[in-house]
């Protein structure tokens, strides 16, 4: 142990002295410092240098970082794009950006202008910055092994055409997005052609379109995030092997809002999430082989909406409470299965006391089939007539699909 400790210490000293020997300098930028402009400091700096920027407002147009530098802000220096330019563009590997305020990037319909863009790099770190009123905030293109941590991103988006995404990842891999707080953009987190990345512990809320949006991005993990109050909730499309665990999808409540919209998602896991007050908690279109397990569905409009194109989805050990419709579907056939879920609308009994109901539960009600065929009948929701219809159907099940039923409904809320 002691030997190992000594080795570690000497290695550390070696590295430090090497750093000094190569001359890892620290350049300071402020109104009375050696450098008064960040531009000049970046140009003078050698690869590996650290640039310390003190508080103040810097309006320097577009800043290009093309060598591995570490930019460190002290007392929240403000980089202002004046509503015209991309503020910071990174084209070198291993650039680190910490402690800055980025504001007022340009808006363009031709280019994706961002507050901070990393283009074709590896090992970048964007940590502890604040972004406000930008078109795109953090934009990673063709990059890998980067991390985006603990940033505070607020947008002032009012229309989808004039706004970008808070965190936009394109054609990248092995990116870690952690602990960011995102609000007021078009999409909170957007991924396209992204592999082997993780999105954890973020809060993404009040966006115009989606809190999380990804396409053609396989093998990614989403854990412990909160996606709430976005215009259309969360939409994930055309991807495989996605893991979504312990997230919270809440208050995506509007006429076209989804807690989680799965469009052609295959071989994925949706587990232990909470869906609270969404118009449609899980909407599944063309998705196959998905494990939906241990989730809690609370007070949603439609808890699960399965289109006929969904197959081999397994719903197990979920809890359904206070939802207007537990399951709705467009078809009378279904190749999905439900088992051992808790349904608060279950009216069966458990004579052998094994906590499993003795008669199956049919989560699709006659009224929801009626609404499926004649959408306007929704105006009769919760009317005495609706309850009469559902009661009649429970006594004489004729119309509701036999294929969707939980053979082993759990008794007693887990």
């Amino acid at each position, binding site marked *: 142990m002691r030997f190992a400790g000594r080795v570690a210490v000497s290695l550390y000293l070696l590295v430090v002295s090497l750093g000094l020997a190569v001359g890892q300098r620290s350049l300071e930028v402020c109104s009375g410092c050696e450098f008064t402009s960040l531009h000049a400091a970046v140009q003078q700096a050698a690869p590996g240098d650290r640039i310390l920027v003190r508080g103040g407002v810097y309006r320097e147009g577009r800043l290009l970082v093309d060598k591995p530098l570490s930019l460190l802000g002290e007392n929240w220096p403000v980089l202002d794009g004046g509503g015209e330019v991309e503020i910071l563009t990174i084209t070198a590997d291993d650039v680190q950006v910490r402690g800055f305020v980025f504001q007022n990037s340009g808006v363009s319909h031709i280019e994706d202008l961002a507050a901070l863009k990393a283009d074709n790099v590896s090992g970048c770190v964007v940590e502890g910055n604040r972004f406000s009123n930008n078109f795109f905030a953090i934009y990673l293109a063709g990059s890998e092994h980067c991390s985006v941590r603990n940033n505070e991103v607020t947008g002032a988006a009012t229309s989808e055409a004039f706004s970008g995404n808070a965190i936009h990842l394109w054609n990248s891999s092995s990116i870690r997005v952690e602990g960011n707080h995102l609000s007021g953009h078009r999409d909170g987190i957007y991924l396209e052609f992204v592999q082997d990345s993780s999105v954890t512990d973020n809060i993404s809320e009040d966006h115009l379109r989606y809190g999380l949006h990804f396409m053609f991005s396989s093998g990614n993990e989403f854990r412990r995030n909160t996606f709430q109050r976005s215009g259309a909730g969360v939409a994930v499309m055309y991807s495989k092997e996605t893991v979504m665990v312990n997230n919270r999808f809440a208050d995506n409540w509007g006429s076209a809002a989804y807690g989680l919209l799965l469009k052609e998602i295959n071989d994925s896991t949706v587990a232990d999430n909470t869906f609270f007050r969404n*118009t449609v908690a899980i909407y599944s279109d063309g998705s196959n082989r998905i494990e939906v397990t241990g989730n809690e569905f609370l007070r949603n409009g439609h808890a699960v909406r399965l289109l006929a194109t969904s197959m081999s989805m397994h719903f197990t050990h979920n809890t359904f409470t206070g939802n207007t419709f537990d399951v709705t579907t467009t078809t009378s056939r279904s190749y999905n299965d439900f088992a051992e879920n808790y349904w608060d609308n279950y009216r069966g009994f458990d004579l052998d006391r094994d906590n499993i109901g003795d008669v199956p539960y049919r989560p699709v009600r006659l009224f929801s089939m009626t609404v499926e065929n004649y959408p306007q009948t*929704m105006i009769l929701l919760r*009317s005495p007539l609706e309850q*009469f219809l559902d009661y009649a159907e429970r006594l004489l099940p004729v119309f509701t699909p036999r294929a969707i039923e939980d053979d082993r409904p759990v008794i007693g809320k887990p």
Partner: protein
Amino acid sequence: MNEAVKVMKYGFFDLLRSRWIFVYTVFFLLITGGLLTFGGDPNQAVLSALNLVLLVIPLVSLMLGLSYYYYTRDFVELILTQPVSRPAVFLGHYAGIALPLALSFLIGTGLPFAVYRAGNETDAPVVFSLLLAGLLVNLVFSALAFWIGLANEERVRALVIALGVWLGLTMVYDGLLMGFIVLMQSYPIERSLIALSLLNPIDLSRIVVLLQLDIAALLGYTGAVFQRFIGTAWGVAMSLSSLVVWIVLPLLLALRTFRRKDF
């Protein structure tokens, strides 16, 4: 107006003394208290209480209203021999029956919610809309009961008509509405559907409560016309004012009958 208040006071305290109004209050207290105690989720409790508002309140208002009308007929006849104006007697009489009923609903339902929800404000609009809807339904059906009573000398006939009105407005109307939707499905019927639901006080009060809950988003999901009407303050204002029309119209008709009636 002084006379109206006097007649109302008489009716009010007379009815308060009767055990039916007491039973009615306790019924609401037990049901709402039970829903909140054993159900847990206050939203679910509101939805279950909504069923009472839609089914029980109209029935009880009609039945109690009618029987009270016949019960106090002699008294009204006696009063009318005095030099008092007929509208004043009529209004006092109506308020004397409608207010105790409304009060016992408000106490029976409001009290448990007030006790259980003391700490949490989030569901306040839902509970408030439930109480408002219940109150208005109460006033609507008491007015209808009066009108039916005044228009029919025969007690049994009036009871049958009242039951018919109740069944028609709670079930048959919605059934016809559903038939209409199914038949006219390929036409743009959203607007007429909204108009048709404004015509039924029970549908109206249901929509007023559900606007605070799930129907807004779910209807918006089915069509933009609904969304435009129902998602706005305009929709709420429209529904509430239609309910008020539903109180005033039967009252005016009943008043006309009352003025002309030869007791």
